[in-house]
């Protein structure tokens, strides 16, 4: 077992555990902190995949800015601790059963239907550093790039419109 695989397995465990922790904790701020841990783990995944720029963007945008927004929203709602009682008591067992069914189907498809292949192309165009991303973004992907700015503009207008009172 190589060092990278070992690292991946440990990180995968942390990622799954933190995701579960986020879902299961009844205190919204703890859930947010679990999410930060999850974001950080995913950032290391990007490093493992040889994409340092994406990793850093993940840290600054997700673990930084978006988490701040989440915490503001939690404080805005003023419900740090969720009430424990589920409204529809039969929902949870049913969801569990359905998820089990889906899992069984997936296992069947993966391991018993021989007609399906699972191969992936060996390599996808390598792009690693910010320079390679810059070149891809500003030549091949210039249209999506410009559309992104429009999207950001619309998001800004929407946020202002929904939170400001008309004067």
């Amino acid at each position, binding site marked *: 077992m190589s060092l990278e695989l070992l690292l991946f397995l440990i990180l995968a465990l942390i990622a799954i555990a933190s995701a579960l922790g986020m879902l299961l904790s009844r205190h919204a701020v703890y859930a947010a902190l679990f999410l930060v841990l999850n974001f950080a783990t995913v950032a290391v995944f990007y490093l493992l995949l040889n994409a340092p*720029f994406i990793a850093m963007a993940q840290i600054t945008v997700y673990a930084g*800015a978006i988490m701040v*927004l989440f915490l503001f929203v939690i*404080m805005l709602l003023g419900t740090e601790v969720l009430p424990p009682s589920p409204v529809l008591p039969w929902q949870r067992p049913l969801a569990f059963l359905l998820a089990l069914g889906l899992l069984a189907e997936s296992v069947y498809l993966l391991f018993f239907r021989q007609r399906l292949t699972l191969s992936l192309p060996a390599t996808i165009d390598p792009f690693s*550093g910010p*320079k390679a991303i*810059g070149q891809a973004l*500003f030549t091949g992907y210039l249209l999506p790039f410009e559309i992104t700015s429009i999207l950001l503009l619309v998001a800004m207008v929407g*946020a*202002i419109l929904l939170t400001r009172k008309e004067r």
Partner: protein
Amino acid sequence: MLLEYVAIAILIALATFIALAAVLMGELFGPKRRTAVKAEPYESGMRPIGPGTRRMPVRFYLIAMLFILFDIEVVFLLPWAVAFRQLGVFGLVEMLIFIAILLVGYFYAWRKGALEWE
């Protein structure tokens, strides 16, 4: 290839260690005389009333949202700056369009008074 990041990992470990040390040293060596009054939350000499959490005004959210949007803009600026020499004038024009569109958003936010703290 991950060896490149060992330096960063050491730095993180060191930062964590120093931060923990700063907190724990005080705990270890400082004098401790705890009383019930000292354990109470301090609220300008008043007796604390009600829960410590309460709803925040929505304008904090707006500020955070605007921060994120401009943060994302910066994330796009970085690869552009690094690849600037290869991209040349064409890249410059693209970036100018990008920034111009976001400037429209900035101007909108300004005129709408979203940058003011009422």
